């Protein structure tokens, strides 16, 4: 137990598979307008990759990849991006009006602003959940006595 995190089997498996999980999350979000899925599901899968890394390597080492300031930045970026997509609707009409040509259905570049909005929600949900998990894993450093007592009663 000298090294933080789990065994070497888990670490090596995580090293191979975490990137693919994150890639699958992005894929789910980017093809949200063509097949089941969407930004929220993709974001949660992306956060799952981050959670896997934090669990396998320990929050100390994984803090180089997934840490709270980074999650704050991407969380805010996603929220701002969604609002910017909504505000860009004023180019052609009003709030949330589709301002990009809708293209041909069943093509990747279709749906106008919908893929952009999915991308923003992907960033927002993924970074938000990952950040919440990172913040929760800071629990292990110790809690004030009052909170510990309340937590035991729950």
């Amino acid at each position, binding site marked *: 137990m000298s090294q933080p995190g789990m065994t070497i089997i888990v670490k090596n498996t995580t090293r191979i598979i975490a990137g693919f999980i994150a890639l699958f999350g992005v894929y789910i979000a980017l093809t*949200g*307008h*063509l*097949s*089941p*899925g*969407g930004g*929220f*599901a993709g974001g*949660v*899968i992306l*956060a*799952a990759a981050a*959670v896997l890394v934090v*669990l396998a390597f320990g*929050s*100390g080492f994984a*803090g180089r990849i997934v*840490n*709270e300031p980074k999650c*704050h930045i991407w*969380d805010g970026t996603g929220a701002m991006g*969604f609002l910017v997509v*909504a505000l860009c609707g004023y180019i052609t009409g009003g*709030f*949330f009006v*589709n301002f990009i040509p*809708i*293209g*041909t*259905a*069943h093509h990747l570049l*279709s*749906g*106008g*602003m*919908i893929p952009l*909005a*999915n991308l923003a*929600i992907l960033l*927002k949900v993924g970074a*938000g*959940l990952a*950040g*919440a*998990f*990172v*913040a*929760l*894993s*800071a*629990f*292990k*450093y*110790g*809690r*004030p006595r009052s*909170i510990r007592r309340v*937590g035991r*009663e729950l």
Partner: protein
Amino acid sequence: MGVEHFIVALILFMLIAALIAAETRDLLSAVICIGAAGFALSVIDLLLGAPDLAITQVVVEVIALVLLVRVVLRREDTSTTDARDALRTGAVLLAGGVLLVVTFVAVGGTGADGTIPAFGAATFANPDEALPSPVSSDYLAKGPAETGAANIVMAILLDYRAYDTLGEATVIFVSILGVYVILRQVGRRKQEPVL
């Protein structure tokens, strides 16, 4: 009809799992029961033809389960106190009663003369052809042509009802902010910085 019976069986399974989760004294068992109820719900979503919802339900359930198991295992003892909470038992009984009432209304009130539409029928569907086209069938008919999205769920979520999605995104944002605020206050008490 087979699907309906299967769904009723799944709902019963979820009900039993939820009751065990509320009543058991072992926290880890409670977490596992909550997970079982969630996965049963995702199977119901899939059977009712809502793959978007099913995917989201499964991934959220996995994340929540991992998080809860980690939090529970982090504590030394996974058992709650022996004291029976009368209020909690009462709440469980009340929830069961509400569920019975809802089931009774749903079974007795459906059909042609009932106030609740038949199983699987769209809530906004307009049975009268002469009246103007209702909103949900309008979405289905014009969605792909107007928004260019092949997936009708995304066409509704991010185009027709994008205001709702903005509200949901705001809810997530604020709740994540709440998590940060609550945990940050705790984290400041220790010596080394959080990560």
